[in-house]
């Protein structure tokens, strides 16, 4: 930068020198002011950018949190299935000795077990299937197979029974299937074509080992009630096994095991595995 001296006249007096010094001081001040102003503008831009960055980061965090919350809530909203192996609350309901000691397992619903957990054995033994063929060995093998996959339970998932079915409901809870059947037979005269009656009767017959009869009640219900459907599909599979229709049962179980959200996926997987052996 040029010095103030060079702008002075040769015979400059003190006043002129002081004026020149003031001018140079003022110019330096203007230069610094301009610099400070420019940097202040840059600072403001930087602060705006930081605010935008923080907002963006907060937004991303919010979206992630919302995503996590969505997946958690979504999982909770999946159909609440009455677990097939939930024990009946009645005292007279005596489970098979093999499961008596495993308290925790009997409480935890199979359909809600984590994938890493091993599928426990069924809570109840399968009924004696109606003997179609005379081969005793074959029947024993079928019974053994049914015992391994007999994941059944009452009340039925998604089914709401009214006062009309109180007696049948009580008997089914007690697993007194004969009494339940007689009551449902009585009701059938009054409530022909009632879906609730059909489902209860189909279940009752299945638990009595009457697979073919059970299917006559289950089949018309297919696709009619979304909340019943998953359990109905599984029970149809069991009824097919009772009637020894292995191929049809296997096809059905394979369909179920491909549905990740199906509450009986793991049971179907097990059944398909056993049938494929």
């Amino acid at each position: 930068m040029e010095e103030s001296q060079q702008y002075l006249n040769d015979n400059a007096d003190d006043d002129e020198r002081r004026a020149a010094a003031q001018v140079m001081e003022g110019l330096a001040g203007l230069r610094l002011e301009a610099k400070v102003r420019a940097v202040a503008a840059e600072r403001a831009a930087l602060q705006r950018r930081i605010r935008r960055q923080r907002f963006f980061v907060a937004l991303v965090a919010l979206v992630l949190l919302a995503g996590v919350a969505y997946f958690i809530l979504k999982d909770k909203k999946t159909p609440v299935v009455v677990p097939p192996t939930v024990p009946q609350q009645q005292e007279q309901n005596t489970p098979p000795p093999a499961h008596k000691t495993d308290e925790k397992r009997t409480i935890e619903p199979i359909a809600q077990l984590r994938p890493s957990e091993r599928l426990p054995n069924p809570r109840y033994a399968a009924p004696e299937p109606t003997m179609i063929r005379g081969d005793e060995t074959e029947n024993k093998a079928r019974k053994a197979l049914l015992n391994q996959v007999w994941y059944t339970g009452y009340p039925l998932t998604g089914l709401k029974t009214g006062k009309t079915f109180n007696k049948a409901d009580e008997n089914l809870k007690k697993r007194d299937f004969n009494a339940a059947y007689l009551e449902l037979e009585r009701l059938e005269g009054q409530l022909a074509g009632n879906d609730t009656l059909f489902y209860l009767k189909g279940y009752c017959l299945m638990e009595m080992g009457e697979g073919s009869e059970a299917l006559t009640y289950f089949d018309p219900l297919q696709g009619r009630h979304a909340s019943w459907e998953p359990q109905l599909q599984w029970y149809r599979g069991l009824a097919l096994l009772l009637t020894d229709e292995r191929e049809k049962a296997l096809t059905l179980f394979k369909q179920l095991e491909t549905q990740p959200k199906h509450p009986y996926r793991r049971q179907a997987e097990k059944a398909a595995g056993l049938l494929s052996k």
Partner: protein
Amino acid sequence: MRMIEWLAPSNPCRQFDGNERLFEALKRLDNAAILCVQTKAMPSARKFVQQYGLPPESADEVLNQSTFVFLQKIEDGSYQFQGHAPSTYLVEIVRRVALTMTRTQRKTHETLENHHDLHDPDVEAAQRQRESAELVRQFLAQMGEPCETVIRLHHLDGYSDEEVVRQGWTRYTTTDSLKIKRSDCMKKLVQIAQQWRSLNNT
């Protein structure tokens, strides 16, 4: 690439790997260097503003005034690098400027006698320089073109004569003619200042 830059943490000090390099850049009035020390001093400015009961929005003004004093001290050589972080010195100036602002506010309510010991020479020198700057701004406006531009390009914007001639920002096509014109303009500016001083008995 622009996205990565946008997302990268904003740190104006990143390019200065040591206090000495930062100080050298400050001597050159490098914008990034000034922004770096300001960023470091800003939290202190906010703290002092709160401590001294100044309005929160005055933190920016305190920092700007402090930066002015700070750069002035670097220019006149009264602040020399001694190994310490330059921002430490700026923070000290911020404290004094904030204190002076507090006193200025109080003065309006109290008698001047109570404040005879409240002078801060650095802050006052900066104030004087700002007043001189304002006067020179008025004188330059009074002179008009081409003197205003010729003086501004050299003394305020810091362009070399060669650059000014090359860019054609003035009517002067050689550095010699530009220098002669600027010398002439500066003499006129000094004369205007001298007249102003005699009129105002300063």
